[in-house]
């Protein structure tokens, strides 16, 4: 349940048991990579050699505010409306 909290995910009572069982099975399987000797192996950061991927830092037009807000479930005063952090 700690992980579900970290993931900001509510789980209903009937979801918890199957989730725990299925995750254990997958984790047992992926734990096999623990058997490999990976000392002195660098973790992959990117699969293709790439350098200088930065584009010039030039101002560009962005989405107009009303377009960016148009898909939101609730809007107020030119912003996204959300409930209070504390009830």
């Amino acid at each position: 349940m700690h992980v579900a909290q970290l993931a900001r995910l509510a789980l209903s009572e009937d979801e918890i048991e199957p989730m725990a069982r299925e995750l254990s099975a997958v984790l047992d399987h992926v734990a096999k990579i623990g058997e490999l000797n990976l000392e002195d192996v660098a973790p992959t950061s990117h699969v293709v050699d790439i350098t200088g991927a930065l584009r010039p830092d030039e101002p560009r037009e962005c989405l107009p505010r009303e377009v960016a807000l148009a898909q939101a479930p609730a809007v107020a005063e030119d912003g996204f409306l959300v409930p209070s952090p504390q009830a």
Partner: protein
Amino acid sequence: MSATDVLALSAAQAADAIAAGSLSAGELFEAYRSRAADDRAAGDDGLNCFTWVAEQAPKGIAGAALGGVPLAVKDLFCTKGVPSQSGSRILEGYLPPYSASVVRRLQDAGASLLAKTNQDEFAMGSSNENSGFGAVRNPWDRTRVPGGSSGGSAAAVAAGLAPWALGTDTGGSIRQPAALCGIVGMKPTYGSVSRYGMIAFASSLDQAGPLTRDVRDAALLLGHMVGQDPCDATSLAFPEEISLPSAERLDGVRLGVPEELTGEGIQAGVLDAFRAALVQAEALGAQISQVRLPHAPHALSAYYVIAPAEASSNLARFDGVRYGLRADDPSDLLDMYTRTRHDGFGAEVKRRIMLGTYALSSGYYDAYYGRAQRVRTKISEDFRSAFDQVDLIVTPTAPSVAFKLGEKTADPLAMYLNDFCTVPMSLAGIPAISIPCGLADGLPVGLQIAGPAFSENRVLDAAYALEQSIGFDGVPARV
């Protein structure tokens, strides 16, 4: 041209016919549009390939290379003003304010948006049973899955409901459904196609690619997809033109067969079709030898750490604030987040978010994500060594033919094993194509051909020569 003649044309042939004036783009569009709309209207009695179908042909671009040939696009590509939900209920009603770069690029080249295709939710799945829009059926056998996650795209092309389609591949999501539906599907080199506007699953692996009836169409579509995009810092300028393949022979081409991916766990009928394709390759002049990919058997484990980890991060954006679903009457902000995500995500997406959150959580990062990225390095090294000895690597695309709907839904691990042969190439970022190479139990079998980064032209040439030699009849009993 009669409607039957029009539907028999490959996309490349249709573009040529339009350019020659013997076919009108409007007539072609309507021939497919009406078939796609019928499938959508049929609901469960159809194949359920589509989440949206155009009501009329978009205004064409005169003289453009693709001539207005209609294109079906996987739901997860943002299409301006057209529903784009990545197969998920959490994006209910979302109308993107912009289109994905690759979609725009193809529209500029003259492709007409025909439909959005059904998929596994957020591209997480190998059977297209994890969709918020319901399962897709395989046109070869309605009781079987089309593969996933680009199952709607694959089934639509196989059933002649679209001339060609866009898909995405993270661990096999183009190649495996192409194999199970008897069509061609290609995952290009990571970075060759912009990811901007693709609703992200696992950013270090996601890559868009074509699903087509034949290899020539795959080359034509891919040629208009590749290229650097200022909106995607991981995109690269493709080093050469993608040319239309024409090779008839494979003289001197060295094909490597990795023993790790061609033995245990592969269905006997699939191996028979694979070996028959190798015999054909030899007859075309190819030299076939065994190669080793010692870490390939660990690829699936590494993948099912890396992909969920990246997904758990990418899917944090679905919180009920800016778009899509929001839970009713939240008591506070946290309640809104957790219930919106509970209501909006399907079971497999929740599973992967949990898995990824766990793998990235404090105290477990090194044991899971860190180790998995090291395994990934070893897999890339395996491929580099293999490509010192051979030009291309060949394997079956999927370990089995299309399985029954519901057969693997209760066992996530069994489902994940579908990606056994495709995940190593994804982790290494290298290009791979699946072409149909025969039938087993009356169902299509895919042959996977992979090459080093940016070897798309060589992969396509070899695939084309084999395709001509195999002569696969790509038309299932029309549905």
